[in-house]
């Protein structure tokens, strides 16, 4: 870390000095320390109403910062293409900070490129960085389960059948954690609520997502939410079947003018602007950044027509509580198979590392992770 700080400062100093001597050379790109080119790699289209859009909204906010240039590439698969994209941003556009926004970019692509370009900073949007990884790489992440908990509170007060539905992509830790938090929120206000999960097995599979949403409605669920890359299909299906829904990743409020309650959204621009400011001041970037409502990394979508007064009041109160650090996981909580997770009175802190390792669903969730 310290070695890196020196090299960063040296670089900035030399570029400032270079201005006087070499202003007509290629170093002119670094004309003053505030100039920064940021590269952002997306796995899908930037306007997918979901994961990529959340990052693209933040990228757009970053473009407004003086001295910052943003270069973007979308639809980059999680293959060697990711590495090529990052290298072209570095070599052709002079990117000094690269955001790799998809889970599968990290190993081996971000790690390889980080080792190859030690003077470029790489940040990856999932909590994967460890001490043994290159120091110019790192992770940033929003704890979206806090916002899903707030969604759950609103959903628990909105259901009449007490059956909630969740269309999930893959049974990985962050997805399971969102599912658990959503039900915990619902049960906080409605102890009879249950949650049915259907896994589609893919991050983006519109026809199957529609089938899953329809199957949940047919099974009696009257509030749907999801964790897939683009929630557009799930939200639209819920709306067309006349039930309520909660969003995920970005705002889907326009898609469901009647049934939209609220949604769990990332607020990546907080992190992006923070990093850009750090680099402009010559400060080192943190290798591991994460947070929820308390640090403004996640937010709730403004309430839609589906939100009742009671739901709004309870959800606002829950958000304030989570922001102040009140735990989401409060015992007694059993896992799905009945083994205790937390005894009565015990709780996990909202940033407890144990929650990062979630590999279970809690009691009250129907659905299997295998």
């Amino acid at each position, binding site marked *: 870390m310290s070695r890196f700080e020196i090299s960063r400062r040296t670089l900035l100093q030399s570029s400032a000095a270079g201005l006087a001597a070499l202003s007509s050379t290629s170093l002119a790109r670094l004309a003053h320390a505030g100039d920064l080119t940021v590269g952002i790699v997306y796995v899908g289209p930037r306007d*997918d109403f979901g994961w990529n859009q959340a990052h693209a909204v933040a990228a757009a906010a970053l473009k407004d910062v003086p001295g910052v240039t943003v270069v973007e590439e979308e639809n980059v698969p999680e293959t060697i293409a990711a590495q090529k994209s990052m290298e072209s941003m570095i070599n052709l556009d002079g990117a000094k900070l690269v955001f790799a926004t998809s889970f599968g970019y990290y190993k081996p692509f971000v790690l390889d490129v980080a080792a190859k370009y030690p003077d470029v900073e790489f940040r990856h949007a999932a909590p994967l960085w460890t001490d043994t990884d290159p120091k110019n790489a790192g992770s940033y992440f929003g704890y979206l389960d806090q916002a899903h908990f707030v969604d759950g509170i609103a959903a628990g007060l909105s259901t009449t059948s007490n059956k909630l539905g969740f269309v999930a992509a893959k049974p990985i830790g962050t997805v399971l954690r969102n599912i658990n938090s959503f039900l915990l929120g619902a049960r906080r206000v409605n102890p009879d609520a249950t949650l*049915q999960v259907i896994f589609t097995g893919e991050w983006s599979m519109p*026809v199957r997502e529609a089938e899953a949403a329809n*199957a949940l409605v*047919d099974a009696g669920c009257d509030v749907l939410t999801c964790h897939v890359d683009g929630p557009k*299909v799930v939200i639209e299906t819920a709306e067309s079947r006349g039930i309520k829904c909660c969003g995920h990743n970005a705002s889907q409020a326009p898609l469901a003018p009647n049934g939209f309650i609220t949604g769990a959204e990332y607020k990546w621009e907080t992190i992006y602007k923070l990093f850009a400011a750090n680099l402009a001041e010559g400060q080192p970037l943190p290798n591991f950044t994460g947070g929820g409502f308390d640090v403004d990394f996640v937010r709730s979508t403004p309430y839609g027509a589906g939100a009742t007064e009671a739901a709004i009041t309870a959800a606002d109160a829950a958000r304030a509580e989570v922001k102040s650090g009140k735990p989401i996981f409060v015992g007694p909580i059993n896992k799905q198979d009945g083994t205790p997770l937390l005894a009565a009175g015990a709780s996990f802190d909202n940033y407890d590392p144990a929650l990062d390792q979630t590999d279970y669903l809690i009691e009250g969730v129907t659905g299997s992770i295998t």
Partner: protein
Amino acid sequence: MTGDAGLTTVLLAMFAGAIRVSTPFLFVSLGEMLTEKSGRINLGLEGTLVFGAMSGYAVSYHTGSPWFGVLVAGVCGSVFGALHGFLCKLPKVNDIAIGIALMLFGTGLAFFFGKAYIQPSAPRLPSLSFGAWSDHPGVRQALEINPLFLLGIALAVFLWWSLKNTRYGLIIRTTGDSAPAALALGIDVNQVRLLSTMAGGFFAGIGGSFLSLYYPGSWTEGLSSGQGLMAVALVIFARWNPIYCFWAALLFGAAGALGPALQSIGISRGYHFFNAAPYILTLFIMIVSTSRRRSLKGAPGELSITK
């Protein structure tokens, strides 16, 4: 939930899924069937499907008329078909290679022009309710049938009848079975194939517009996820018979609904396996249908895969 109720739910969901999901399979496979009957394979229908989905959605958004969108999707599809037919007419051109090139071209072009249409919401196709007699909401939902599905059934019957009983059907079949024989009869082989491929592209384009304008009912880049390719496999399974194409499309639709339906009644172990059902079915069908004794029955003699 009792076992019986669960079974009913799954069967109902598969029935509903068959009706909801099968239409694109049906249209693409009918189009491919017609093209193959004339003696060419058009693997580009996946690209046509995606482009049809995009163009149908875009036109529906701009004009406010989803049916006009369906028409334009079909016309775009036939333009792709014409391109395929024209290129394959040139000497020493392989129709499979051109098909793959057109698949990539169609998909890429659709993504390029489709950027602007991911966000806006276009008017969708209406559905017809045939379930009013039932009190069961699941049955009612399952019997919300899109007119395109009915059109597809009519088209399948029409193609079956006309291939068998009309002069044009005979011309297409002759061209597909033996180009020299067709030439001897004074038939312009390339012209017949061009028109068949164009008609096939038209159907595939309509299949695409169903995806974006009815179910799942929006334009996204992952919309097709290989359905156009599966429909090509389905033609072989259906032995180039339009009626079998219909049943095969229903079967694929039902198989696609199996995974989510089983999870919804709580049978969720092994969902990866059930989600993979359509693909496993494809593989299984290919293996079964390439058995040595039966593979040529019904296959057009001019097809490069059977030569």
